[in-house]
Structure formats: C-alpha cells, structure tokens
C-alpha cells in the first residue's frame, strides 16, 4: 500500500499553480488536504504522474467577511471553520455540520475546497453549500467564472470543474440575524460518511432544506421549500410534503442501506430538521 512513483510541484502562488495546471492538465492531479487522494494513491486506485500541491499556496486559505457574503478560501482547513468566529456568526449551519466531517486528525489537514471538488455524495460540505446557496469561484490560467453550488455537482465524484480549472473560493450569503438552523446525519460510526444527512435553515427570508447521501449529488428540496414558503403553510402537512418531495427520488443503495431504507431515513431526518427550525 504505497503510492506509485510521481513527481510533485509545490507552487508558492496561485498564478504559478494555475499555470502548472494549464500546462499539465492531462497528467496532473491537484492535491489539497489529501485526506481522500492519498489513501486512493496508497491503494494505487489513482496513479497521477504529477501532483500539484496547493499546500504552499498561502493566498488560497483564509476566511473573511465581504459585505453580505462570507468568503472562504479553498485551502482553508476544515478545523478552521470551527475556530473562526465569523463562521459561527454568519454561517451557523456550516459550523453545525463541521463536527460531523471525519475526525479531529483529518479536519486539521482536510480542506473546504478539497471536499467540494472531490464531491463525495455523502460528504457534509457539498450538502451545506447547496443548502446555503453558496457560489464558487473557479479559475484557470486564462479564465474565471462563478458557479452556483446548486449547479456545481454533476454526479458522484464529478463536478463542473474542467481539467485545467481550480476551485479557489467559496462565497456564502451572510445568514440573517433571526436564522435558525439544523443539521442531522446518520452514520454507523461517528466520523464515517453519512448514510443520509439533512441540512435546513430558516429565517424571515425563507426556508432552505437539502439532503445528502441520498442520491449521487446533494438534493436541494425545491418542491418542499416552495410549499413551505407559500402563505398558509400548516406544519401538520409536513409529512405529506416530505413524501411528495421524495416521491420521485431513486436513492442510492449499498451494503449499509437499501434504496428504501435511505429514502425512509431521509424523510425522518427531514421531519426532525424542519421540526427544529420551524418550531415557534
């Protein structure tokens, strides 16, 4: 269980990293925290010829408030999300989700951007970004574009990122003062990827609910959100609305949970989360 031979470059600036990626897009792999990539390389499931290491690109890390958005550099370590008071104050749903990501030792190296670009269907960060309607800055040597989180994830482990593009920054709308949020997940052991996870938040501006682990990409529950948003919403109707939301869902199945069980779990966790944020 040792990785195959490769070369590694450790650029000091984003410009250099993007130039390297533009030049070697075919054979290179970008390494952020490496908490998924290194085991995959140890098993030789991935054998990149060249690693472009972002750990030396200091400008990609950091959290700051910029008007009505919170900007998080892609190389910000997951543990920083728990320590930074800006996250607790302006993105409380994100702060709630972080303790569920891996373990102390993986959060201290794993990055926000790495998890998003990897796009595991059951990962917490993609789910939260979909729930929070975050947007991602994506750069290549010659271009820059902003992509909404809700359109970023294409399929399991697949995103809108092109071979020569790098996710550089995440922008999250600052939560209103009256926000209430809830994050719940069910995993066999603490720190495992969730079988199903639900993130919800509510303020005077509206409700947002998303489910992860259920399908190949996080599901933003638009139908349900619209139904709750309409004037005469009665909380007793929640089970019926959740059933309607999940009606067409074909959930993932694996050794841990069947399609039916996942969908059932999703309904239960959605009910719990919404119960928490809608409670008067």
């Amino acid at each position, binding site marked *: *269980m*040792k*990785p*195959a*031979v*490769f*070369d*590694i470059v*450790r650029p000091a600036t984003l410009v250099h990293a993007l130039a390297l990626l533009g030049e070697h897009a075919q054979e290179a792999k970008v390494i952020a925290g*490496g*908490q998924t990539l*290194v*085991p995959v390389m*140890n*098993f030789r499931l991935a054998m990149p010829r060249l*690693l472009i*290491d972002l*750990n030396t690109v200091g400008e990609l890390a950091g959290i700051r408030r910029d008007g009505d958005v919170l900007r998080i550099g892609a190389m910000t*370590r997951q*543990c920083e999300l728990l320590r930074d008071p800006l996250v607790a104050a302006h993105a409380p749903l994100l702060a709630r989700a972080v*303790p569920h990501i*891996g*373990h*102390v*030792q*993986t959060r*201290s*190296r794993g990055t926000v951007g790495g998890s998003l670009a990897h796009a595991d269907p059951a990962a917490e960060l993609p789910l939260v970004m979909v729930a929070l309607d975050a947007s991602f800055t994506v750069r290549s040597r010659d271009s820059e574009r902003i992509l909404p989180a809700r359109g970023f994830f294409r399929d399991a482990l697949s995103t809108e990122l092109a071979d020569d593009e790098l996710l550089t920054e995440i922008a999250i709308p600052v939560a209103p003062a009256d926000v209430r949020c809830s994050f719940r997940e069910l995993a066999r*052991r*603490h*720190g495992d990827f969730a079988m199903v996870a639900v993130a919800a938040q509510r303020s005077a501006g509206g409700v947002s609910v998303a489910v992860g682990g259920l399908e190949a990409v996080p599901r933003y529950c638009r139908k349900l959100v619209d139904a709750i948003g309409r004037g005469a919403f009665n909380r007793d109707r929640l089970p019926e609305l959740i059933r309607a939301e999940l009606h067409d869902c074909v959930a993932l199945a694996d050794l841990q949970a069947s399609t039916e069980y996942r969908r059932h779990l999703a309904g239960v966790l959605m009910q719990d989360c919404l119960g928490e944020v809608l409670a008067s």
Partner: protein
Amino acid sequence: MKLKCKINGAAIEANVPPRMLLSDFIRHELRLTGTNVGCEMGVCGACTVIVDGEPMRSCLMFAVQADDCSIRTVEGLAPDGNLTALQESFSRHHALQCGFCTPGILMTLEALSKKNALPSSAEGVREVLSGNICRCTGYQNIVDAVLALPR
C-alpha cells in the same frame, strides 16, 4: 527531493522521493518507530503525529509536504524519561493493553491539550478519539485516564 524540517526539536535535512509517506520517513529513515502504521488509509489513527501544532495522520501526508514544518512524535513527549501527565494517567488507569494505538492516541490528546481543548465529558473524549481505533481496551480506561487529567 530536499526536505528540511524539525522533528521533536531537532533540525533534519534529507533527500526523499516524493512518494515516500511521512509515516515511512519517520519510521524507516529516522528510525522513530514509536509512530505506528496500521491501515495506511487514514482510518485507524495509529500514525497520528503533530504537525505545526495540529494532530495529523502521517500516512496521509507525503514526507516532502512536511518541508519547513515542525513535527512531534511520541518520542518527543518524554525526551528525558519523565512521563507527561497524560502518559502518567494512561499508566495509572491501565489505558492500554497491546499499546499499538497508544502513540496515536497520545499525540491526538497532546495536540488538544496544548490548545486547552481537551473535552471534559466522557462523550466528548469518545468523540475526539473517534479517529483512533483501539481493539483491546474497549476505550473505557482511556476515557477514564483523560477525564482524570486536571483541566
């Protein structure tokens, strides 16, 4: 590739191939075999060391990525043979049996202790140690050893 780092306070310079894992560098090149390697896939936690103050899995880092870093391994806890309070407490509470997982657990707790972030509830201790697998103790004595420490 050139690598310059500090291990337990000592300056190290080495030439390593990029594919060498930090865990293998520590064990095979530096002969610091207190850091154990269990799964090499980031699950068991036996290889946990402290990199620039943070507990990390040394099997999930390449040695070259430790360039300019300061690393602490279990050997650095008691260089003069005097056990730390944490080690004393593990001894007193019989918090280990085979001891394979112990270095990783000690380094995880040491990093938290330095940040004054040791949990004070049994549930909290179990949560921070969820990334360190122990197959002997059932964790109870480990939890007891941590809870007995002064906060």
